[in-house]
């Protein structure tokens, strides 16, 4: 294993005369039955994120390391990993914030690992699709121009539209960890985003789907999803708001069955 040398560049911006050890989870599905951890010593730079350190490992120490990343600016949601046991976007986590190390980096909790730090996303994508995350119109209205929406109407759902599908909330959610059939925070926040959209008419359809046992009612309001969300979407609040609407709907259904549909 190589040991990086930063002294040669000492004095340049961001260079510290130190190194930090990364303990990175490794798992090869065709060879391993259990994940293991490999240690790598990388330069500790004040202008590096954890993702930069992973890229250093990939470029200089072990090219076989597998992980996802893309934008490097907290937009694409690809580089979510467990950093010292906490779900974080590695492109937004300063390396110095986890110094002196060692820093343990693993794949997101509660997901099947494809290889090393790469997780299986198909199940999550299925959950997103299940909540019908698009504008639903009952009237089959074909607009000839844009729907008009006031800033106040936009403000109602804007927060829930900021989700980047990084899945940190799923890794943080103990309920999803115990019961993978739980629809989960991001998908439920996305459903609420469309329910609150003044242009949408699909709330009843979504309630039929999301008011089932594996929908909103599995959430036990632990709130870790909102704690780790890098975009402050607050999925926990979205789910509680949804519960209020679903409860009103449930009582209406039972107390006024003739008024339903």
């Amino acid at each position, binding site marked *: 294993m190589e040991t990086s040398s930063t002294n040669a560049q000492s004095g340049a911006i961001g260079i510290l005369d130190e190194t930090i050890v990364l303990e990175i989870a490794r798992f090869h599905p065709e060879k391993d039955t259990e994940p293991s951890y490999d240690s790598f010593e990388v330069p500790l730079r004040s202008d590096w994120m954890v993702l930069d350190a992973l890229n250093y490992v990939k470029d200089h120490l072990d090219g076989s390391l597998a992980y996802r990343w893309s934008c490097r600016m907290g937009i694409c949601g690809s580089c979510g990993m467990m950093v010292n046991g906490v779900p974080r976007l590695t492109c937004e986590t300063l390396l110095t914030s986890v110094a002196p190390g060692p820093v343990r980096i693993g794949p997101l909790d509660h997901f099947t690992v494809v290889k090393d730090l790469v997780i299986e996303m198909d199940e999550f994508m299925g959950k997103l699709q299940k909540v019908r995350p698009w504008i639903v119109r009952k009237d089959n209205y074909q607009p000839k121009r844009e729907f008009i929406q006031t800033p106040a109407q936009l403000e109602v759902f804007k927060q829930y539209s900021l989700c980047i599908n990084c899945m940190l909330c799923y890794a943080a959610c103990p309920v999803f960890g115990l019961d993978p059939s739980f629809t989960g925070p991001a998908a439920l926040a996305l459903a609420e985003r469309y329910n609150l959209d003044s242009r949408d008419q699909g709330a009843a359809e979504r309630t039929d789907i999301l*008011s089932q046992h594996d929908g909103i*009612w599995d959430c036990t309001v632990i709130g870790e999803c909102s704690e780790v969300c890098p975009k402050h979407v607050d999925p926990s609040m979205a789910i509680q708001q949804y519960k209020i609407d679903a409860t009103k709907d*449930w009582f209406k259904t039972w107390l006024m069955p003739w008024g339903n549909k």
Partner: protein
Amino acid sequence: MAAHARRSNRPLGWVMFGTGGFLVAFFFPIHILLTGVLQPLGWVPTPDQHHMLTLLENPITRIYLAILLIFAFWHAGYRLRDTICDALGVRALDFPIMLVCFIGAAAGTVATLWMLLTVP
């Protein structure tokens, strides 16, 4: 509608849970402060049993206590159900656990009503 039929019945329990949570969070600290701290320290006068029974003669007091305690029991039952299921990892046993917790809450409800109705 098939999807409609599969909807969870949790809203009923959740309303009791949410209302109980609000009442417990709002009023219990006041009672604990009064009867658990200020009265034992002698900072406020401690009413004797006669005073307490006189207070209970007012139907508003009984209604207040009934609402506060009954919703608190259902709040506890709902929360205990989730806590047992998740902490012990036995979500598969949700139904019997729910039964035990909600029967406990119902027993608390009956006991509260019986006491409030029978205290002279």
